């Protein structure tokens, strides 16, 4: 294991730990963003450039902002400091989820045969594009995702468009 890898891994773990243990929800959100950022860096370090940059764009650029906006819009900023309850009513539910997810991951790892060490394939962006569009299976998935996105976009526009009564009332 090299030193850059250790540094990146330490940042990922530390910021993920901070994201679930800090008292201030905005700080938690920002730490989660740092964790996303470090994960993207890890991908870049492992030469998975496309994955790394998409991770940065989607998670740091969009998901982190979504989290922060949700925090801001659902509670006043003044109570953020001591908003996290000190009691833990959800402890058992949390434990149940943790055991389920952990079990699933562990059972997958148990049957997973680690590949023999080989050189990582040099995958250029053109090849990724070809893989996505050449085989029939992938094209179908791509089209379905695109349709889903378009539907979501149109839905968002419809939600955002003012109802008829509002516009007649003089720009409310």
């Amino acid at each position: 294991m090299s030193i850059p890898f250790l540094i990146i891994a330490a940042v990922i773990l530390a910021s993920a730990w901070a994201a679930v243990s800090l008292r201030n929800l905005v700080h938690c959100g920002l730490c989660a963003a740092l964790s996303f950022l470090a994960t993207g860096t890890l991908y870049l370090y492992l030469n998975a450039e496309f994955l790394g940059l998409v991770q940065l764009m989607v998670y740091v650029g969009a998901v982190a902002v979504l989290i922060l906006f949700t925090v801001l819009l659902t509670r006043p900023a003044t109570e953020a400091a001591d908003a996290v309850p000190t009691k833990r009513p959800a402890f058992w539910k949390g434990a149940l989820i943790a055991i389920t997810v952990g079990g699933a991951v562990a059972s997958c790892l148990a049957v997973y045969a680690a590949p023999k060490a080989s050189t990582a394939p040099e995958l250029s962006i053109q090849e990724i594009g070809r893989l996505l569009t050449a085989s029939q299976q992938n094209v179908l998935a791509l089209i379905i995702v695109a349709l889903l996105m378009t539907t979501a976009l149109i839905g968002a526009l419809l939600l955002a468009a003012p109802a008829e009564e509002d516009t007649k009332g003089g720009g409310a």
Partner: protein
Amino acid sequence: MTLVERIDQAPLLLQRWAVSFFPALLQPWVAMLISAAAIIGVFASLFALSTLAERKGLGRIQNRPGPNRVGPFGMLQPLADGIKMLIKEDIVPLRADKVLHFLAPIALIVPSLLVYSVLPIGRNLIAMQCQLGVLLFFAIGASTELSIFMAGWGSHNKYSLLGSIRAIAQMISYELPMVLAAVTVILATSSLDTVNIVEAQAGGFWAWHAFTPWGAIALLTFFICALAESNRAPFDLPEAESELIAGHLTEYSGFKYALFFMAEYLGMMAISGMAITLFLGGWQAPLPILNFIPSWMWFFGKLACFVVLFIWIRGTLPRLRADQLMNLAWKFLLPIALLNIGLAGLWVKSSGWIAWPISVILLGLAIVGLGRLLRGSRPRGGKRIYRYAD
């Protein structure tokens, strides 16, 4: 190497000469360091120059002389401003989130400088040639939203928070048509590498992407979005000094304020540089006869034109209303950009001339139709009701 080529490659030769003094083990690191230092040095001084140009230009537009006291014709004004910013007291609000308040300007300036690494400034002059250059540019640019949020939230000031929320909403909305406009170029050159994109436009100005039907519209879309992304007038609602004091900049003073200011200008120049790379031939000369002028001079010349255009627009156009801002992005630019991608595909498949009339007709119809829709969508009838201003 002829003299012309030697001048053209002067920055690279200088770098090699400087690197050759170091032991072989250190050389790649030194080369990287020199590229980074050159980018910071050149673009930071361009920032200083463009603040002067902006104050002078805006002054002339508003029929006043602008700064004219420090040095001949006020030329040393940026220097004086810099010294003033450095020695000013740094005020942190009592109830501010000290850590975020401190980190925000740093988290903003780092990505603003990082995006320059994929801009080809001249022939062979690029800090980091990367297969995914265009994607890298937008991915890093997306992280500036978080730093603006940090600034707004960390200041513990409602104006700051409002300003930063406005800024983020605006940046997210305009990022979409901007990236879609860039996609047309990626489609046409089938490459995400900025160097390849510039080389695909070699030969003269008629080979530039801006001189194709989809390229012209994409450049226009990209430019409007660039104005919005860098929070410049007429999209400077986040700072709207008459309503929000200065948005997320309100609680910043001294050098931290200067860093925000610098990040704004650096962002403006980086996006202009990207527009030049994607649509206006990058460092290519407009005519093959003019190739004796060094390639980096062409790049900086085009960049200067863009900066002047930004200043000119700031001096002439009034600020948009928030609803106009959102309508423009979602109801006008986004559909146009989507249609444009289809037309770029048509252009690639039909090899040119057939695509011209189809593109012109379709784009003309779309622009006129959507424009009418946009005009129709403003609040009509009755008198305006001011809820809070009575």
